[in-house]
């Protein structure tokens, strides 16, 4: 079964502080769609180096949402993009989509 986003890291970090959890999720909710959009726009314009930097930034949010396998996948994808290879776009977009749905729910 495909791994699903979860809040275990955020719970661990907050120590039960719901106010902090809500504020953090609100910030992720604001930043994630923006970062995803910039990433897609860079891919569209063929700027793979910049897209790799975007993936690098997105990796932090992937890890915050407990997606360990996706994090490893993103590492590979980032390295490949830096070399001008873009073979993992569809799968990475699927990860992003799952995160966006999760964070909005």
């Amino acid at each position, binding site marked *: 079964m495909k791994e699903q986003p979860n809040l275990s890291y955020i719970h661990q970090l907050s120590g039960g502080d719901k106010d902090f959890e809500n504020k953090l999720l609100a910030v992720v909710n604001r930043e994630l769609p923006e970062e995803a959009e910039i990433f897609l726009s860079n891919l569209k314009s063929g700027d793979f180096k910049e897209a790799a930097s975007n993936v690098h*930034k997105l990796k932090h949010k992937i890890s*915050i949402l407990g997606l360990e396998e996706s994090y490893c996948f993103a590492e590979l994808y980032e390295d490949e993009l830096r070399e001008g290879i873009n073979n993992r776009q569809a799968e990475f977009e699927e990860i992003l989509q799952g995160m966006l749905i999760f964070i909005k729910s």
Partner: protein
Amino acid sequence: MKCLIIDDEATARMIINQLIQKNPNLELEQEFPNAMQAIKYLNQESADLIFLDIHMPDFTGFDFIQTLKTPPNVILTTSDKSFAIEAFEYDCIVDYLVKPITQERFDKAVQKAIKAKPSKKVEDPVSELNKTDNDLYVNIDRRLIKIDISSIYLIEAKGDYIHIKTFDKNYTVHSTLKKIADKLPDDLFLKIHRSFVINTKHIIDIEDNSVLIEKDVVPVSRSNRPELMKRLNLL
């Protein structure tokens, strides 16, 4: 310990802020979304410890450290494991935290910072020049680049940087006009304005308030004009 956070990602700043709140040894002074704002802050204020991201647009964490004469201790916070070796080339870096950061790992890094001595002075890009009689070495992107002093015809101060113009190439270095002027031979170089030092050998002509040097027209301030006139072999 008074600390700062520098990270362009708001999520990361919020997480580090939370980790700081839970550590009794730390007191958060300020957080910054980019290195430039932090540099301005540190020109006026001090800090004991900085939590610093490496990957930031325009100015990386390493660039930031290089701009500080006496950086406080630094704990790097990054999603990239590959800079660990480079990180420990800097005396001021006491630990390297890979995101996502747990409280336990964070506290361990803070303990290292507490035990660490205050960091040593970082080599100034210009004052640490290996000056020989004819050459000047400037630190640009962690490389010491040799410049033949006689080829320099103009140095211009712009904010926290100086532009060094030579016949072949121009260089931008984080330093001040005074620091570089101190390293140059007095018989060749002269400050003619608060923002300009020129090599007097390369003057083409002088008008009332300006000097033509190569293709640059450089202003001469009233207070510096007498010294300039003294240098000229006037008929």
